[in-house]
């Protein structure tokens, strides 16, 4: 089969990219989705809040997933579900992808590939939480599938690790499923979601947020979760909390395995492929978008990065020659900033999705300016930004014209003059 563009992953970024590629006239667009249903993570998210920035209306997760899926099908893109891209070879002159499904094993040679494989939450084991290994310990991802997609009821007491938007979403899901949420807990000094969200949770379900706290031991009883040990990081005090469910939320990691096994360079900050302003990775013809490159932004932001990537893929397909002549200047963040996306500057007039960079911080800071510098020269200072772990910081891209394409790496720091 001849394919112009292979899109890996039919979440918001992949589907939106496919729609845009077709709109721009790319003939053969194939979207490969390993799950049985297209739509990505929003499929399992029962609450509203989807589609604002890209579809300009508010939808529930499943409705949003359906809208994007329908639009992708109508656009003329081919959508294959239950289809895993099990290998991607990007070493030689051409790109080769192996697709595995019920239909068998197929090798295709697309002209370009868009990786839109998304992200996942770090599970308990990756966070090195010690103790027993009972049932009842899960991530938001598994929780939402069990509750919203399979209609499971969860009885008993639940504790949620994390206090970001997704953590409150997990708490809502648990309450919906019949569990009583004892508390949300975070190692940070305060919660990281919207005040309204937190207040809603507190009033409606009387859920407290335990700050500066961590789960330091999990105890099982006959194979089921019995209790967890919670340590207060301020006082060192340890208490035992009886619970039946423990949900680990947030702490995102991109699903970058296909990218890494294909030899694509990984950004040390985002842990996704290092990408330039046009979403191109280190391998010519391979692009990346969505929460693979910024884990995790909201679905509409992921979708818009997919649309941006689609446009750049079109330029790549029509003007192959010019692509590799440009110099690529990396952008590096200094602590407490954790990452920036995109993270490579190409001085060809390209701007990032939504004309802004997105960053993450590891620590709370009072409203603060970010400083952009290259080779000791200050290129820009942002306006004052709120620094909340797990929430995006946006840096406008207006300084791009001042970058020296032959210069050293660009550094993003907290402005010491704050």
């Amino acid at each position, binding site marked *: 089969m001849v394919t112009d563009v292979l899109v890996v992953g039919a979440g918001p970024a992949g589907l939106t990219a496919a729609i845009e590629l077709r709109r721009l006239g790319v003939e053969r667009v194939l979207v490969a989705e*390993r*799950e049985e249903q297209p739509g990505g993570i929003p499929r399992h998210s029962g609450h509203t809040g989807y589609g604002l920035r890209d579809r300009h209306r508010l939808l529930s997760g499943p409705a949003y997933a359906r809208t994007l899926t329908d639009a992708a099908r109508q656009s003329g893109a081919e959508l294959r579900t*239950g289809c*895993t891209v*099990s290998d991607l070879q990007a070493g030689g002159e051409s790109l080769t992808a192996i697709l*595995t*499904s*019920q*239909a*068998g*094993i197929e090798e295709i040679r697309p002209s370009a590939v868009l990786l839109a494989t998304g992200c*996942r*939450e*770090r*599970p*308990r*084991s*990756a966070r*090195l939480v*010690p*103790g*027993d*290994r009972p*049932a009842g310990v*899960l*991530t938001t*991802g*598994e929780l939402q*599938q*069990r509750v919203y*997609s*399979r209609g499971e009821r969860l009885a008993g007491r639940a504790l949620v690790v994390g206090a970001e938007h997704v953590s409150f979403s997990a708490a809502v899901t648990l309450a919906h499923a019949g569990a009583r949420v004892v508390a949300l807990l975070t190692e940070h000094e305060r919660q990281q979601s919207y005040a309204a969200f937190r207040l809603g949770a507190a009033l409606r379900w009387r859920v407290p947020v335990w700050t500066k706290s961590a789960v*330091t*031991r999990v*105890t099982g009883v006959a*194979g089921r979760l019995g209790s967890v040990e919670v340590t207060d990081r301020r006082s060192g005090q340890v208490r035992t909390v009886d619970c039946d469910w423990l949900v680990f939320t947030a702490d995102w*990691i991109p699903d970058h*395995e296909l990218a*890494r*096994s294909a030899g694509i360079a990984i950004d040390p900050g985002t842990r996704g492929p290092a990408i330039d302003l046009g979403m191109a990775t280190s391998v010519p013809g391979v692009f990346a978008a969505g929460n693979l490159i910024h884990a995790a932004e909201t679905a509409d932001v992921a979708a818009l990065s997919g649309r941006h990537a689609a446009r750049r893929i079109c330029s790549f397909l029509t003007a192959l020659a010019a692509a590799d002549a440009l110099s690529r200047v990396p952008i590096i963040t200094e602590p407490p900033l954790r990452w920036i996306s995109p993270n490579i500057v190409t001085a060809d007039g390209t701007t990032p999705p939504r004309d802004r960079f997105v960053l993450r911080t590891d620590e709370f800071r009072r409203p603060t300016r970010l400083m952009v510098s290259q080779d000791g020269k200050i290129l820009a200072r942002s306006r004052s930004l709120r620094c909340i772990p797990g929430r995006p910081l946006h840096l406008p891209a207006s300084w791009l014209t001042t970058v020296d394409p032959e210069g050293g790496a660009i550094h993003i720091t907290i402005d010491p003059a704050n």
Partner: protein
Amino acid sequence: MSWDVAIIGGGVVGTAIARELARYQLRCVLLEAADDVGTGTSKANTAILHTGFDAGPGTLESRLVTRGSSLLREYAQETGIAVEPTGALLVAWTPEQASSLDAIVEKARANGYLGAVPVSESGVYEREPHLGPGAVAGLWIPDEAVIDPWSVSLAFATEAVRAGVALRLRTRVSGVAVLGGGEGFELAVDSGPEPVRCRFAVNAAGLASDQVDRMFGCDGFSIQPRKGELIVFDKLARPLLSSIILPVPTPRTKGVLVAPTVFGNVLVGPTAEDVADRSDLSTSAAGLAALVAAGRQILPSLEQEEVTATYAGLRAATEHRDYQVSRHGRYARVAGIRSTGLTASLAIAEHVAGLLEEAGLALKPRTGDGPARPRMPYLGEAGPRPYQLAERIAADPAYGEIACHCERVTKGEIRDALASDLPPAGLDGLRRRTRAMNGRCQAFFCGAEVSAMFSRADAGLRAEGGGQRGH
């Protein structure tokens, strides 16, 4: 009715004995307290197929590990159990350690292993370029290998059951009465009022083997559980090493090793901590921190990689240095089988059959061919998995439907495990039979789907046979 032999304990040793005795004209029963075979020390170990180079020369352990090693290699090949012949590199990090390497070579020779080759400092880094700085010298043991530990007990039990051995799960022995005239035993079990009568009894109860031993009126040893915590790193770390990296052992422990697993991960461990509680399989903050630190020192690039799983196992250590295998009338004690039990299992079984014969058990081979060797699902990464085999998918499309994406486990494999001779009793059993949900996402993506497949199959079995899952 009375059984010829009752085997107490369905770990790798007990199932191996059951399989061995199934070759003869005997009526045997295998009693296991848990709801599946191989759930104790047999499932939580370093999964190394040893050569026996570092055993205590002249011990029973040395002899059985050496023989068991070649038997298990052959058996794994015949049944399709994954073995990866990685070799092991024993690394000396100090001049003192380097000076002890000659003695290790001598000890290996005394154990009948002649393959150990000294390696220079540069040779160490040629073999393992990602190793951390500071290695002084090494010893290359080419025949050490890694194996799929879960499929071994399952294969033994499957073969035994197919040959007529009765497997009774969820059956704990709570007391022993000696029958008049010393002609056998009556074993009280907690699974029902009927005791199990047998002419001969084998104690392969692992961590409970001293308690069982006392029920038989013996008192030769006590189990002193030694906990080992382990960390499994992501598959993306696998290219960082090609062989098992061993430390120079101390008198107390073999130390923390870094090893590839046949499943394509990297394992760091085990710690060694004496514990009192025989059911305590918890990991500790200190243990995990020590392993992360050790892993980073040995293989610094591990720092960049994610941890996929952490777990702990208990070694059934005793106060004695050697295995505790002996016969007392018609009772055979098979205890104190430490970390080498997986490797030695088939040789232990042969040895135990010999002990029982001495006690008067007639070992008459069965007539006819008997059941064929079971063919186990290949769970390794060194050979092709079902999702990679076009012909297999063409013949049965379920092998092209990947359900667990991290481990690339197909619906066909999950279906097969649920319908096997020894179906899993729970999700953990399904994990050990297929690898499903064992990957980096720890069920973030597939947990709901795989649980649903299990529940459907479980409900089907209950409706059909009154819940006789796994006999």
